């Protein structure tokens, strides 16, 4: 008995050890994944936070005829390089709008140039000339330089000069494109799922369709861009870069995801419910519309939101249909050129001016916040949909 027991004990210990190791591997995998995530967040947030502040300087602005001719004359020459060109160039227009300004010299807080901004934030590579550095330091002592909350980042569109660049236009573009995507993809996707799940006979054809839909959900998104270019732009004549073409292309991309999610949700509704309804004499339409669809709705919505969140973060297909461009104005209609948040982040990331680095990170933070809230909504629906039958 003793040897047998002893062997059994040894085997048990071995099994326990294997068990522990297995648990540890799983744990290590999670720690590893989390470490990446934490690293990413720390990197992005530490880079992006400074972008929410913007330097301003106080200078005397000359509103006169000379400024009207050459806007660089609006401030004294020694300050010219410290003031943002994007502000300077608007001075003549200001005078045109408000003629009473002409002839006045006013002390004003104005937008500072990006190099001044980077210098104040202590970033390396600010490339502010040493004589200007001295001037800025001196002005700092006199309280003529300040960092304020960067409202422009949320109220302006893209700009080639980082101090003037904001995300408003691309955020509006994103919303518009997403709305269009939803408008096209959700009804078509849900109807397809209902047909396949509730009405279609189980034959070769539907099997082929099913395999193709699953396959489409997995192909690289850039192919949808090419498809969009061929169908919507070249064939149907939808204007390039417009919100409409972006929305349609992303709708194509999101369709398979929505169809698959909606089918799963419909399948999860137990047959007893359908049979009970049929038993009471309900028609097909009534069964689906009154019973199956309402019960499957939370699941369908979850799938749709996840599909739309994916579309929201997509850039590759939009590159092909011309939305990765310099488009600083928010679109007035769905036919006008539009850019979206991820495209904006991409264009900033390839800018040569260093101050765009923090804008890029800040843009990523905004996009992440939007995606996170979309996913939170999806989770909420999922929790509500956990019906027990």
């Amino acid at each position, binding site marked *: 008995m003793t040897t047998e027991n002893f062997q059994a004990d040894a085997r048990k210990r071995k099994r326990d050890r294997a068990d522990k190791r297995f648990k540890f591997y799983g744990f290590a995998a999670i720690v590893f994944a989390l470490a990446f995530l934490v690293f990413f967040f720390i990197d992005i947030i530490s880079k992006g936070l400074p972008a929410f502040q913007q330097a301003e300087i106080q200078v005397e602005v000359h509103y006169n005829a000379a400024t009207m001719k050459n806007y660089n004359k609006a401030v004294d020459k020694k300050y010219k390089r410290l003031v943002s060109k994007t502000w300077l160039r608007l001075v003549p227009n200001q005078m045109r709008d408000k003629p009473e300004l002409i002839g006045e010299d006013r002390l004003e807080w104005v937008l500072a140039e990006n190099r001044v901004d980077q210098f104040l934030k202590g970033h390396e590579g600010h490339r502010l000339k040493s004589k200007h550095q001295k001037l800025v330091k001196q002005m700092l002592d006199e309280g003529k330089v300040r960092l304020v909350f960067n409202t422009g980042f949320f109220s302006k569109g893209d700009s080639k000069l980082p101090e003037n660049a904001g995300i408003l236009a691309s955020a509006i573009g994103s919303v518009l494109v997403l709305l269009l995507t939803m408008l096209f993809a959700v009804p078509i996707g849900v109807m397809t799922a209902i047909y396949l799940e509730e009405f279609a006979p189980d034959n070769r054809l539907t099997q082929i369709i099913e395999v193709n839909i699953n396959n489409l959900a997995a192909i690289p998104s850039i192919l949808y861009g090419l498809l969009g270019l061929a169908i919507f732009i070249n064939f149907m004549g939808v204007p390039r870069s417009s919100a409409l073409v972006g929305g349609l292309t992303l709708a194509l991309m999101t369709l398979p995801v929505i169809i698959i999610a909606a089918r799963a949700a419909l399948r999860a509704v137990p047959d007893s419910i359908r049979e009970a309804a049929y038993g009471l004499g309900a028609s097909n339409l009534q069964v689906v519309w009154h019973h199956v669809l309402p019960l499957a709705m939370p699941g369908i919505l979850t799938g749709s939101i996840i599909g739309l969140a994916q579309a929201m973060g997509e850039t590759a297909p939009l590159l092909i249909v011309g939305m990765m461009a310099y488009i600083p104005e928010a679109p007035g209609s769905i036919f006008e*050129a539009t850019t979206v948040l991820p495209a904006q982040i991409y264009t900033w990331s390839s800018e040569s001016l260093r101050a765009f680095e923090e804008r890029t990170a800040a843009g990523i933070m905004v996009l992440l916040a939007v995606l996170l809230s979309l996913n939170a909504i999806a989770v909420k629906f999922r929790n509500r949909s956990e019906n027990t039958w």
Partner: protein
Amino acid sequence: MKKIILSAVALLVAANVAQASEQIHIVGSSTVYPFSSYVAEELGATTKFKTPVVESTGSGGGMKLFCAGNGMDTPDITNASRRMKAKEYKKCQENGVKYITEVVVGYDGIALAQSKDTAPLNLTRKQILLAVAAEVPNKEGTALIANPYHFWNEIDASLPHRKITFYGPPTSSGTRDAFEDLTMKAVAKKMDVYTKLYKADKKANKKYKKYHEVRQDGVYVPSGENDNLIVQKLTKDADALGIFGYSYLAENSDRIAAATVKGIAPSPEAVQDGSYKLSRSLYFYIKKSHMDKVPGMKEYIKLFTSEQMIGDDGACTDIGLIALPEEMRAKYRTQAASLTNLKPEDLKK
């Protein structure tokens, strides 16, 4: 429901076809893109015109869109970091884009750069060719062999014992074209060992006329169109050399430094006087048939060619464009204002 949606889409599209474009649409080179979009921004901010849409498609991609026809859905202007090719001009003509005006706005220098902490490197164009070409002459210079060089001192004993690594643009990029043109082609077309192969069989060995095949054994790493990525790689890899536009070098001068070519470092002055060889002109092309139909085109062109933008102290010069000499600027300004037609014989020069 499907039907309703489909017909709604069809209706929207039909309603839209009739719409004319009211906004300037610009495509083309990613090198000209920052300058072009700066001008676009200024036009949008200071005038009543809508800000032109500027898309960065690469020089070749821009030409293709530009030459696709005269329709209002085609671009009005295309930017290029090289001259229009005769082939592209022909394509334009075939598609009815008959009248085109060419404007040069400035220069771009191509910089070979390395981490600031690395010992300075001085190269000749021939040494660069030997480092990046797929096939190079053997020791005796009689025949071509697959590139055996992995350290600079193997190419020339005077160079340091340092691993050869290049991070550069991919083939789709205009910068890559220019790099190949200015270093590889320029040298190889004068080297017998390449050209004699071409002369021996002009058809089969066409590539040896102006040899510009880049090695693919991992020494030259194509690094995407994003030049900031190359800059980041250089700070991590002390041996590596990066290839990109001058503006990125200027903007990152705190962490990277230029390798000199024949003792000359890239600078606006060296590019202007021609002593720095790795430089090229930047162009844009105007579709004349759109001039009356798209509001603001004349103003955009005028603004882009103005001293305020491309002069020695202009706004584009500030963000990395290298200005043309003054008389050249004046020449192209008049050419742009009078919309001189581009002729096929111009492109042969």
